[in-house]
């Protein structure tokens, strides 16, 4: 390997210091990825409908952070990322309203909000 091509994964001490002291795009992406992973984990493991909905919100917000961060750090001259994030927030609000309403209905009908029991569509 020649010296003029830097291998991205050959991380030096300076790199680590730089990362620790300068907040950049990578930090936001990392935060977003962590949030998304937490949300996904919750979505797959939680049993109640309300926690599942909350996890979905988490994943959506992870995406929003991504959008805003890219819009800020990448060379774009408009605010499409922010706009998209605002749209996503609005849609998420609707989704929560409907989701919670559905959860209430399901609880009234079935007496449970355990997603394992909501399997009447199984083949």
């Amino acid at each position: 390997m020649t010296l003029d091509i830097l291998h991205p994964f050959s991380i030096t001490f300076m790199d680590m210091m730089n990362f620790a002291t300068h907040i950049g795009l990578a930090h936001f992406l990392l935060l977003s990825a962590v949030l998304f992973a937490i949300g996904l984990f919750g979505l797959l493991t939680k049993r109640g409908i309300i926690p599942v909905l909350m996890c979905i919100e988490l994943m959506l917000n992870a995406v929003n952070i991504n959008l805003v961060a890219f819009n800020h750090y990448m060379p774009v001259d408009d605010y499409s990322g922010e706009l998209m994030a605002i749209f996503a927030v609005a849609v998420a609000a609707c989704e929560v309203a409907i989701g919670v309403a559905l959860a209430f209905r399901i609880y009234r009908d079935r007496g449970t909000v355990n997603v394992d029991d909501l399997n009447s569509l199984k083949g």
Partner: protein
Amino acid sequence: MDFALTHAYLIPLLPALAFVVILAFTRLDKKKSAAIAISMMSVSFVLALLTAGAVLTDHLVMSATYIAKAVWVTIGGIPISMGMLVDPLTAMMLFVVTTVSLLVQIYSIGYMAHDPGAGRFFAFLSLFSASMLGLVISVSFIQMYAFWELVGLCSYLLIGFYYYKDSAREAAKKAFITTRIGDFGMLLGIIACQVAFGTVDFMELRSIVPQYVWSSGTSFLTIVGILLFIGPIGKSGQFPLHVWLPDAMEGPTPVSALIHAATMVVAGVYLVGRAYFIFSQLPIVMEIIAWVGGFTAIFAASIAITQRPFKKILAYSTISQLGYMMLALGVGSLTASMFHLMTHAFFKALLFLCAGAVIEAMNDEADIFKMGGLRHRMPTTFACMTIGVLAISGIPPFAGFFSKDMILAAAREVSMPLYIIATITAFMTAFYMARLLFVAFLGDVKDDCPAEETNAFMRWPLVVLAALSVVSGAAGHFLDFGEWIHYGPYHEEAIDPVIAGVSIVLTLIAYGLAYEIYVKKRWSAMEISHRLGFIYTLSYNKYYVDEFYALVRGAFIDGLAAVCYWLDVHVVQAILDGLAHVVSLVSEILSIAQNGQVQRYVAVFYCGVIVLALYGIYYAVRVLGILGGAF
């Protein structure tokens, strides 16, 4: 006079309007319906007269016509136009159709006086007139086909007018289906025209066809011509699709007069005449037309001789005369055919209307041998009937003489056998018409005969038609009908004394024979029929054509249906059942995966996303070469 030409579209439009108004508003009111129908028809009649006048004064001839058309629809990039084409042929047809239509509608006031369905009757008559007039002024095959089907529909509706009678329903169905067989052939012909020439417009075809024949010969066009001719075979009652026409007599008699004698059945003849620029280029098709016409003429005449119901005799006579017209077309004389069409429309309508008056007066008794001596009871009808018989038999100076003579002369020029057939047919025509007249009107009045002269509405149209039957032939002859309506170069038609003499002598012999048999009773008719035995039975039973068709249907169609049924049950059904079985089996296996657990779905979905993402990276690295040696 230009007004009449530019507004010729009103001629079919007004009766159509009458149809709509009657059906929508005045159906239950007999008098109003009749008034609307007849007033509209009268205006059409006047317009038709004006159109004919305009054609004569503007010197429109067959090669210089008045055309107005507009694109109706565009299907698949092919524009289909509706419009009007006015030439002497059209003008003649418009005149004939509106005249007969008007007279028949006036007659129907009397005929339908006691029928509760009279409003409906006038509506249908108006629709028929509109369709027929639309057919006459058509500019293209497609327009003609549309109206052709419409007149077929009206024929169906009017034959089945007494829908509560079983026989009427059956006859209506038979007429519709039989003509449909012909129509289908014609549709194929029209499509073939469109494919071959890219147009179905008469005037465009007229200029294309000769070049086409010159460059590519007649082989393909012959097939097109034969297919097109199948339509007229069905519509104009030519052998072997003539079987519907006698049964169509189940309809009210004015319908028989208007549709099944004077106008609709000549639509086939008119079509051949209109498309003569195609047919006349094809010697084989012309031969077929001539022989189909000639055979139909003699065939139907030989059946008419033995029939007993009044209208059946006239029906076979109509078939025979239509055969005459086809024969004339086949031997290349458009003039003779159209001339005979015109005179025949008048005298055959007259005969049918007389038949209606007689049958009505006899309280629906149709058998001529149960009539007799009607001339004492119905003198006007008798006089008109006599004129009709003289006209159809071709006695000068009545109308049939001139037109029939022209056909005989045209046939004589082309083919001796056809001339002989036509002459024998003329002899038979004279015989059976004389038989009809003598049996029904001469002799003694039967004791229980209820007949008396009909009302004025039914009498005056007879008189007018009788007058037309007298003068139309002579007028056509002396005013040079052929100068206006002809195809190719015009040449003066002169009466050949030999041909005319032979036909007159034969007609008189036939009259004498009929007189001796049916009035003097010198020879017993029963005796003769027994002597003739087999031939008589054959003719009396119409050569068993209907029975033959029934047999063919039984053996062939029912057999085919049985085979199809077996195939359907044991092959098609089995294949479909098998397929359904396989599908349900597979879906049962797949449905195990669908366990209703949302989180499982999400997990699977996310796994899929990961796989896609990995593939995306792989694609970017290996195929597009992005991220050079990053990994």
